[in-house]
């Protein structure tokens, strides 16, 4: 019998269909990988199963019992445990007390833990390898141990089904191996495990079956090999056949350097998001940084923009940027168009653009606006519309246009294709091509979608697990990395 049976799950947020007709079976002693790029809806599926969000349609059966509509504490008690990617442990309690918490009854009258809870908590801690740090406080633990503690809490009540969100995020190679062992052990004990990950590669060695999602829909289901060979999956991740075209080839190499990133490392608490990254961009160059979600692209851009503290140097032109505020860096000419777009949702298209051009004299502003409307004709017709009501693609164009209103010396585009349908990608791609052909602008583009990133690029960096692992011309990227990227 299936431990978990999901059928026809649908979840809408306003006009956006985050999950559209997703269904799967999960048996005891089986690991199912749920994969898809950011924004594909896989985390929402997990929340629907856990009851954190309520589906608009569909059913979830746990051991044959319908659980849709139950509050998540009831689903938890019925036998579903979840390992969150980010959680806030009790910082004033020890590791042991944090695990004991998961074993407490949901009662207002039991003021003390029942006998046996202490022993059971120690047993669980040992099984995930926390035996030596029982009496430490979470704040003093290395990142991997915090993840172990979350794992311990999730399996404390011996759930039938264990949901794990991004099991390997922020872990180093060796730790990934240890965690894989822990997850295999869960399977061996008969738990049904659902792994949610953006990366096929990381769950490949672990999952018995994989279900791939894109834009809320299932694109493929089967064994790891089948899914990885699937045409649609390859297109989702790579964007189809790889093409490359260079604008000015060698010429760019001889131009003066505009941005130098040297030996930059960034930590989020205990997780290392960037490891000794070196990168440079010359004036007028179009440089693409490609890598899967979580590789560190956004962190790199945020370090350049002064939004996160880092070790190492970032130099713009001939001065270092360390110690300058994000606002000063933006005024200097490094303008970032962030992944989340950050539009002023309640303002109109025109107001958003005017705000971007606030510092320009009126004449220059009008000129810039006219040029942008030429570049993105759709925005001209939408001037009076409130930004929030634009489609995803239009919002992305507006975000880029607003950034360009600031007349940047260096434009940073972070994952502009995120969550966009293929047809919109093409429009966006054309606009970038026009931008590149008609202006001498310098662009640093971060992308997961290689097919989108390559055609425009003069040079490509590949970021993997917080490190730059490859640098070179796009034509060579297609030849060398095309197969191994996924």
């Amino acid at each position, binding site marked *: 019998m299936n431990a978990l049976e999901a059928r026809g799950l649908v979840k809408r947020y306003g006009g956006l269909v985050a999950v559209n007709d997703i269904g799967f079976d999960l048996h005891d002693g089986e690991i199912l990988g749920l994969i898809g790029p950011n924004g594909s809806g896989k985390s929402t599926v997990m929340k629907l199963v856990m009851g954190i969000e309520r589906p608009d349609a569909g059913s979830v059966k746990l051991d044959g019992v319908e659980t849709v509509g139950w509050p998540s504490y009831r689903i938890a*008690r019925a036998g579903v445990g979840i390992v*969150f990617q980010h959680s806030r442990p009790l910082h004033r*309690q020890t590791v042991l007390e944090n695990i004991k918490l998961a074993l407490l009854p949901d009662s207002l009258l039991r003021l003390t833990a029942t006998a046996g809870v202490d022993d059971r908590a120690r047993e669980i801690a040992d099984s995930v390898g926390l035996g030596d740090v029982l009496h430490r406080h979470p704040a003093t633990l290395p990142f991997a141990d915090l993840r172990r503690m979350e794992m311990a809490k999730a399996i404390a009540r011996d759930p039938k089904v264990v949901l794990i969100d991004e099991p390997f995020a922020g872990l180093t190679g060796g730790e990934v191996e240890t965690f894989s062992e822990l997850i295999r052990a869960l399977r061996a004990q008969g738990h049904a495990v659902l792994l949610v990950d953006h990366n096929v590669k990381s769950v490949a060695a672990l999952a018995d079956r994989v279900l791939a999602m894109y834009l809320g829909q299932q694109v493929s289901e089967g064994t790891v090999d089948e899914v990885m060979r699937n045409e649609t999956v390859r297109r989702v991740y790579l964007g189809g056949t790889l093409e490359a075209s260079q604008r000015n080839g060698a010429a760019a190499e001889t131009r003066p350097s505009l941005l130098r990133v040297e030996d930059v490392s960034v930590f989020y608490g205990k997780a290392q998001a960037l490891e000794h990254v070196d990168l440079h961009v010359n004036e007028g160059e179009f440089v693409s940084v490609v890598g899967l979600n979580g590789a560190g692209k956004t962190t790199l851009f945020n370090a350049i923009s002064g939004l996160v503290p880092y070790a190492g140097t970032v130099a713009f032109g001939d001065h270092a940027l360390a110690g300058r505020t994000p606002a000063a860096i933006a005024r200097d000419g490094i303008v970032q168009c962030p992944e989340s777009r950050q539009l002023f949702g309640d303002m109109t298209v025109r107001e958003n653009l005017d705000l971007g051009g606030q510092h320009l004299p009126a004449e220059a502003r009008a000129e810039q606006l006219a040029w942008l409307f030429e570049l993105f004709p759709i925005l001209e017709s939408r001037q009076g519309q409130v930004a929030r009501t634009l489609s995803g693609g239009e919002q992305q164009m507006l975000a880029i246009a607003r950034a360009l209103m600031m007349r940047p010396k260096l434009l940073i585009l972070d994952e502009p294709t995120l969550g966009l349908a293929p047809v919109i990608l093409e429009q966006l791609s054309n606009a970038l091509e026009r931008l590149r052909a008609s202006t001498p602008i310098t662009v640093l583009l971060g992308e997961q979608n290689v097919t989108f990133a390559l055609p425009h690029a003069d040079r490509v960096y590949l970021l993997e697990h917080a490190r730059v692992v490859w640098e070179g011309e796009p034509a060579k990227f297609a030849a060398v990395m095309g197969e191994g990227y996924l």
Partner: protein
Amino acid sequence: MTRAFNRRLLFAGIVFVLVATVLPLWLSAYVLGVLTTAYYFGVFSMSWDLLFGFAGEVNFGPTFLIGLGAYTAALLDNAYHPPVVICIAAGALAALVGGVLLALPALRLRGPYFGLVTLVAVLLLQNAIVIFARFTGGEIGMTVPDVLSVDPKLNYCYALAFFVVSAILLYGLSRSAVGLILQASGQDAVEAQALGFNVTKHKLAAFSVSALFSGVAGAMLVFYMGAASVGTIIDIGIGVQIIIGAVLGGRRTILGPAIGAIFLVVGTELLRPLGQLNTFVIAGIALAVILFFPDGLLGHVLRPRENT
């Protein structure tokens, strides 16, 4: 938490109780009166900390609960003259019921709205009292025919005893298994739910306990002062003082807020020779502590070490 820490705390507690018990032998009736009020405010702040520090909900209207307890007790006493204990019990019940009726819908709200609802509740209560001035005395206030005692020493002892019992119960609760679940609910409600805890139930229970202690303390304060008025019991300013006291002493510690509140009341009184300046100086101290020691005056002392 270490055993050594517990032992130190127990020792400090016993010393405090012993010293506080023998104080009436030396201190004047005036000073005892100040301390009596201070103890009630200590209970107010502790009740508030259970909600904010543990359940993670900011209650901007502690005086709503206190006012319900105080005015219910005062109205009942004026109407039927039952024994004072009955009046206090009725006040506690009213605060409990009113608190639950307020919290049930308010806890469904997310973000800052819970706090705003509690703030509006205070204004509503304040207006209701002014509108029904015929019964409540309106803005002038109402006197109660009975008092706890006319002897300042006895009044002091009642307040001290109530304060100590409340501190033991609330502190014990915060350290119990239920307190642990409550903290988890306050810090990450989604995760607490996923661990199988009905977060709303636990928060509602915390609100009820907070309301109960606030109500009893409010009613006792009325029977100590012999009068209830909007300005001394319900005003937003009183609520702010309770909150500042809690933050000043060190939130999430229960005992810290008690000491912070006592410090505020006594400090304001000590600086009375400065005239209007006294509240200014106290507010300045509070601001400095909150800015430079966000954990509060006693946050570090009262908390077990976090980095072993």
